[in-house]
């Protein structure tokens, strides 16, 4: 219980402080925009404003005009039509004003008795450079006819390269504009704003309602087959290389997860990631019936092709006091923990050969005072288990053969020893050839063999006794070693960048043999994926698999449909 309290107290504290953080105008360059109509075109990353446009820059300059357009990615804006600029050292009228925050330059077309071209540097509006040649597209206004705005509002605050806060307005959802009190659009090039602490869902629509340069809060409407439609919440705190993500998912279901991910890059060579997840069964915010905590810490020290990593898992099987009448978790009070440390070396060319070599060695320990598992027929309880791992991978690059055929191969081998009379061997061999026909068609053939062996020495037959099952009499030969052989033929046809057809036909031959309804994957499968561009900014991607009636399964349960830009 104390752990849970501290965990949520920390989250609450961070949330409270984050809510109040707003960038100071003196430091942050912003454009506060008001107009009869402010619109955001998500497919173009363009904000427009029309009718009585008033833009206030962070240095206090106010520019009015009839229309405004800003390309958020190019990070420049234009105000045109009866422009009036009032600011420190300037009070002028003209045809258009263009701002380039990245260059810290502005371009102005004054309209006195005769027109002119001015270039202004920084906030020094009192000393324009007159006649200086301006970029040819400085006053470019995008053609948005045919595009539908994603957001409609009356006001927006633009923080260049970061985000736009729209208020109040409406967003386009399922073809209809839905009123919202505000929408904070993050378009930063920093991917930490989208780090995800949610478990997977079939669909997810985020509604960011509050944000700053370093944070964004969002409500998500999500859907999956287990929960149906539900709500979730996440909060991001973001720096250049570090981030914290907090989430509660689902908000309106009793079976809920509270997640926290923190990532910190201490130096160019050292980073760590902490992941906490509290899983509860809890009605609204009442005392949970079940609450467990899982913690994972990863720390990596890396340089060139080598890294040293530490991985720690801890699992608190119940955060509810043991005497609680709510507690029905049979694993109450267990705190199993696992440590793993490893040294890895990534692909390095082997002199004089086309091959690359990688290796990994490491050791780990798992401990649970209430028993990790029992061993053998005597059910010997194991509370602490040590293990060590060594493995390597040999990879060949693409080797060109006659007839424009490329071939590559890889071989991976590893052994893991345990502090028991037990070790595990694995080997994966893959050889692959492809033949491209220009950029439009590619055929490939891949063959792979995956061997996995579990070895118990003299006690092998205790763990793998001869079993005869009617569906596969060959299973009697199974003694803990499995082999999977797969052959995959690939066909990728892309006549234009706006259309792609991808077919993968796979045949899997395993030992023990796959037995329908018992175990194993389908011996034959065909996976198809088609991508078609429906419009300039919408690409539809449809995929599905066919299993040739293995275990009465023909088509995969779902057709994946995705729309992308």
């Amino acid at each position: 219980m104390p752990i849970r309290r501290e965990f949520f107290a920390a989250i609450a504290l961070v949330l409270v402080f984050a809510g109040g953080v707003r960038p100071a105008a003196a430091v942050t360059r912003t454009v506060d925009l008001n107009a009869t109509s402010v619109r955001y075109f998500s497919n173009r990353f363009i904000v427009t404003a029309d009718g009585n446009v008033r833009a206030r820059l962070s240095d206090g300059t106010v520019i009015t005009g009839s229309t405004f357009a800003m390309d958020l990615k190019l990070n420049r804006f234009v105000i045109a039509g009866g422009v009036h600029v009032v600011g420190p050292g300037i009070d002028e009228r003209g045809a258009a004003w263009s701002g380039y925050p990245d260059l810290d330059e502005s371009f102005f077309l004054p309209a006195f008795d005769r027109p002119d071209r001015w270039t202004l540097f920084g906030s020094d509006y009192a000393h324009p450079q007159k006649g200086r040649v301006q970029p040819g597209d400085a006053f470019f206004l995008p053609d948005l006819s045919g595009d539908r705005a994603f957001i409609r509002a009356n006001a927006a605050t633009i923080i260049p390269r970061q985000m736009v806060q729209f208020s109040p307005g409406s967003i386009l959802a399922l073809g209809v504009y839905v009123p919202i009190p505000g929408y904070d659009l993050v378009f930063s090039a920093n991917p930490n704003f989208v780090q995800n602490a949610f478990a997977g869902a079939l669909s997810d629509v985020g509604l960011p309602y509050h944000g700053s340069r370093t944070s964004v809060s969002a409500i998500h409407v999500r859907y999956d087959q287990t929960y149906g439609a539900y709500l979730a919440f996440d909060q991001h705190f973001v720096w250049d290389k570090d981030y914290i993500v907090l989430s509660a998912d689902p908000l309106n279901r009793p079976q809920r997860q509270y997640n926290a991910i923190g990532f910190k890059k201490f130096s160019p060579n050292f980073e760590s990631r902490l992941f906490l997840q509290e899983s509860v069964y809890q009605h609204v915010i009442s005392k949970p019936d079940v609450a467990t905590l899982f913690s994972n810490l990863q720390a990596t020290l890396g340089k060139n092709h080598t890294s040293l990593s530490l991985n720690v898992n801890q699992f608190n099987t119940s955060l509810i006091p043991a005497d609680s009448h709510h507690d029905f978790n049979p694993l109450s009070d267990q705190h199993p923990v696992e440590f793993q440390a490893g040294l890895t070396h990534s692909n390095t060319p082997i002199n004089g050969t086309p091959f690359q070599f990688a290796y990994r060695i490491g050791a780990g320990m798992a401990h649970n005072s209430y028993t990790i598992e029992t061993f053998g027929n005597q059910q010997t309880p194991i509370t602490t288990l040590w293990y060590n791992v060594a493995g390597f991978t040999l990879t060949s690059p693409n080797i060109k053969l006659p007839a424009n055929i490329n071939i590559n191969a890889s071989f991976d081998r590893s052994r893991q020893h345990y502090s028991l009379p037990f070790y595990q061997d694995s080997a994966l061999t893959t050889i692959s050839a492809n033949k491209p026909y220009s950029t439009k068609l590619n055929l490939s053939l891949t063959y792979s063999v995956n061997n996995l062996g579990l070895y118990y020495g003299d006690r092998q037959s205790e763990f793998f006794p001869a079993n005869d099952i009617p569906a596969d009499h060959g299973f009697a030969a199974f003694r803990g070693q499995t082999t999977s052989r797969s052959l995959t033929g690939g066909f990728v046809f892309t006549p234009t960048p706006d259309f792609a057809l991808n077919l993968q036909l796979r045949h899997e031959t395993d030992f023990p043999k796959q037995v329908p309804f018992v175990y194993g994957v389908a011996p034959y499968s065909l996976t198809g994926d088609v991508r078609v561009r429906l419009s300039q900014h919408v690409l539809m991607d449809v995929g599905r698999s066919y299993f040739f009636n293995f275990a009465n399964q023909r088509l995969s349960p779902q057709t994946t449909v995705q729309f992308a830009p």
Partner: protein
Amino acid sequence: MMTLRSRLALLAIAAAVALAAPVHAQSTPAPVPSAASTLAPTLLTGGLLRFSGQLLDVQNGYIFLTTGDAFKLAPSARIVEAATNQPTTATPQTRMYVRLDFDPVAGVVTELALSKKPITGEKSFEQVKAFVVAVSKPVENPELIGRKGLTGKPVLVVFTVEVPASTPYNDQVYIATDYSNWDPRSIHLDRFDALHYRVTRKLASGTKFAYRVTRGSWNSVERGADSLEPPPHVVSVNEVDSQAERSHVYRWSDDNPLNPGQRNVGPGNIPTPFQVNPFPSLPPRATSKPH
């Protein structure tokens, strides 16, 4: 043992690989007209010059275009509808597209045709350049000198990603870009062989964006040779016909460093009270019976 059906399938694939003749690459698409070249002067019968562009403003008897150029408007200038060439009561407004007819002697605009759609034109700006009005003489801008123009012409950009050998064959690989708000499934790549995924996209020259390679989620993102999170790749599309972008994924962020292919914990695959498995790094428990 291989069944007859699998042998036939293999034979068909092998025959296709061996016999199919290479298809020669077709020429890449011609570049689209640039913004500047859509401004088109045409010498009309009767000695008038015609020029088109997009309107910024009309003030104090001058007409300003989005090129930043201003032209003198004749006091008696006609305003017509571009499609019909008939007089219109519409007033020139910012964002409208206009066609200007010049008196080549006086250098003033004598007719202004309005349209809500771009008016495509022909050749260059040179013939009306002399009619541009500006108080100050042009001063050279050193920032623009020597800068090669990027016309926005379509360029075929081929993204090729090399993945670790442990990447499951059925896994999908994507590119997440800052232009799609880092959607981890922005661009779907096709598996070309056991180690390579590829996709071709048509992008305008001058396009610049950042990307990262994912397996469809931010919990399965590329890692560098040193196992650390690399900075996003940056692509700048040059003024060329086609461009190749290659990236190498040394491992995935959810790979267990000691057991590549075995997934580390993440929000989607961690133990819960409802699915207890406190030791995700250990192998599945040995069993004497198939399960």
